[in-house]
């Protein structure tokens, strides 16, 4: 056991820090085209798709270096390394694992160069947590598939150019996990209609999507027909350590502590209230637990030991932190905590009140807490399926 980094790892960290110091000016000093320049520069460093194989335009980077990169970037509150979060997180890895040579050539460079943004067409009106029961239909008709059906709660659909789409090609199956097929579909294909849905925070980040006689060429199928569930599961397993999330949560905790120091409750400093102190300490412990759980799992991966579903442990912690931290900040600030952005008395310009309405983005997307508990109980503890 050793929590120190090797000289090579330390010098990599230094390299990332110097890069940030040179290329990440404070927000108010940033030029108009800052983001474009930033994306080009991190791409030139080889930090987009850092752990991807070189043959696909990645850097073959190590897992520890990748963790360092994520950690330093989120410490500096840097913009993302690419505009397609889902492209980098699972669409790209999915294509590299299951795609044809043509697909790899066509899609991977655009993901790395932030030219194309991807969304993920999984949930349907009647099938969210029970994802494998999807009904969106794809029929083979010569050189193309005809897709009919509906997706919903699709994050990023209003602005994405492509969608990784889960469909059913076979309805006569004994296991619902069979007969599912995965496609890569342009959002501007005839017959695709996007209707944004406003969420409770007032944003239109997700949408319902209607597919009516959409023709998808056979060469846009990802993996074999009927292999879609395997593609999906391995894509979702591509999330690696949660180091970046930990750093973000730590920054949020620092903001919360600042708020505590500046807040009075019933005329007394909130920082002297035992309940306040213990609540903040519990958040801090949970974030630390995520950090050290993450490092243990990272070590397992480096040693080549299989991870079953341990990442669900940190997902559960993150879910409760996302819900509870903003909520606590609001409670701490009383009526002022309720004020929205721009409001006269808004605390921290309404960031906490916004956050208290935004947690479902993180908490429900990718599997609800109860689904994570099922995963732990069934895949790690070996309990029978429901």
């Amino acid at each position, binding site marked *: *056991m050793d929590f120190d980094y090797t000289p090579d790892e330390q010098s990599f960290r230094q390299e990332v820090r110097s890069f940030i110091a040179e290329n990440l000016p404070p927000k108010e000093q940033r030029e108009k085209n800052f983001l474009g320049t930033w994306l080009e520069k991190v791409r030139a460093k080889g930090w987009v798709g850092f752990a991807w194989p070189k043959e696909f335009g990645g850097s073959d980077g190590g897992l520890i270096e990748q963790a360092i990169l994520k950690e330093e970037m989120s410490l500096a509150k840097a913009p993302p390394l690419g505009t397609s979060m889902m492209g980098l997180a699972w669409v790209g890895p999915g294509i590299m694992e299951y795609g044809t040579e043509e697909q790899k050539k066509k899609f991977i460079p655009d993901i790395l160069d932030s030219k194309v943004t991807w969304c993920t067409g999984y949930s349907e009106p009647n099938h969210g947590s029970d994802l494998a029961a999807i009904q969106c239909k794809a029929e083979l008709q010569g050189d193309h598939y005809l897709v009919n059906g509906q997706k919903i709660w699709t994050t990023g659909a209003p602005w994405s150019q492509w969608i990784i789409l889960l469909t059913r090609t076979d309805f006569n199956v004994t296991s619902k996990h069979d007969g599912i097929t995965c496609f890569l579909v342009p959002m501007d294909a005839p017959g695709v209609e996007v209707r944004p849905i406003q969420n409770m925070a007032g944003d239109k980040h997700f949408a319902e999507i209607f597919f009516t006689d959409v023709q998808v060429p056979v060469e846009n199928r990802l993996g074999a027909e009927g292999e879609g569930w395997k593609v999906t599961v391995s894509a979702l397993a591509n999330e690696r350590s949660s180091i970046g999330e930990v750093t973000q949560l730590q920054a949020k905790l620092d903001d919360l502590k600042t708020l505590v120091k500046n807040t009075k409750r019933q005329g007394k400093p909130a920082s002297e209230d035992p309940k306040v102190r213990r609540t903040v300490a519990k958040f801090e412990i949970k974030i630390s637990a995520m950090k050290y759980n993450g490092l243990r799992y990272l070590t397992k991966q480096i040693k080549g030991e299989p991870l079953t579903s341990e990442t669900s442990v940190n997902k559960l912690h993150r879910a409760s932190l996302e819900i509870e931290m903003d909520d606590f900040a609001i409670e701490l600030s009383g009526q002022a905590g309720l004020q929205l952005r721009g409001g006269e008395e808004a605390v921290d310009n309404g960031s906490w009140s916004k956050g208290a309405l935004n947690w479902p983005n993180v908490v429900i997307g990718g599997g609800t807490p109860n689904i994570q508990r099922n995963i732990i109980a*069934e895949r790690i503890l070996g*309990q029978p399926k429901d």
Partner: protein
Amino acid sequence: MNFGFTEEQNLLKDQVQRFMKEACPMSRVRDISNSDSTFDQALWQQAAELGWLGLTIPENFGGLGLKWIDLIVVLEAAAEGLCPLPIASQALASTAILTCASEAQKASWLPAMASGEAVVTLGLYDEAHWINPAAVAASAKANGEGFVLQGKKPFVNDALAADSLLLAVQGPDGLALAAVGKDQVTVTAQPTIDSTKPMASVDIDGVEISGSDLLPMSEEQLAFLTDCGGVATTAEMVGAGAAILAMTNGYAKERIQFGKPIGQYQGVKHRLADMFVDLESYRSLCYFAAWTVDDSPEELAKAVSMAKGYASDAFAQIGIDGVGLHGAIGFTADYDAQLYLKRSKWARPMYGDSDYHLDRIATLGGL
């Protein structure tokens, strides 16, 4: 960066688990903890021969010269079977000697501790629920060349088994550890919920000790020893927590109600998942805290508070749910689940409960 155990540490874990299975199964644990002495000399000698009592004692004093991260491997694996041997107390006492004693004192104490010949324990505070130098009330006053002691030390772990005891006192020049032999003092058992962790009070009124038996101790050293106690206790909570989770998890797969295994019901499987999440998390925090003892002592206080602050309440709940998910058999005396619930109660306040540690985290974190 490597947050995993070495091949040697994994072998050590296997060795302890085998020992618990073969030499110290639960029937023997029950016999030992229900006996008058609450101690088993033969088993103790075996543990000594396997090197477990001298793990963190330097080689020149007869030990193996390893670190706390190695020690907790033993403590965790032994606690899976609720091992009643005073291994943690012996380790804390030897850490106290290494921290507070002169080279000559180390040479006279440590070899006999590593060999198991001397059973030694450590008693720090005189008040329940108060971790503070002011909570050391017993005293040592100058008495010719030596000192005379006054007070009664309560809640000393494994005091009945100990040949010698190191007890915190207020000395003429500040805090100190008074070393006393079992024949000099009156030890009175203080039976608790958990008979596998015997506790006793030690009456030291009027006991005279020589000058070399009073070891000066700074407030920082007292805090360090307290934190080491927190690490040791938490490591045992990892092992005991894992054992009752495994027991409950196995039962949930086999117990059929309403025509299916109870583990198929989400009311049961979600509790099991939550137990796993908590255990996994205080396990990670505990391993990190144990690493800081030798490799990053400036991080120790916070790391211990994270680990014990999480584990105190989490293990208590694991104990309750472990028994509760079993139903009536869980609280049957002959069934072992209840022994783990008792351990969770014992461990909760030991070296600081969650409120103590949460408050300390707030302070260390700038609140």
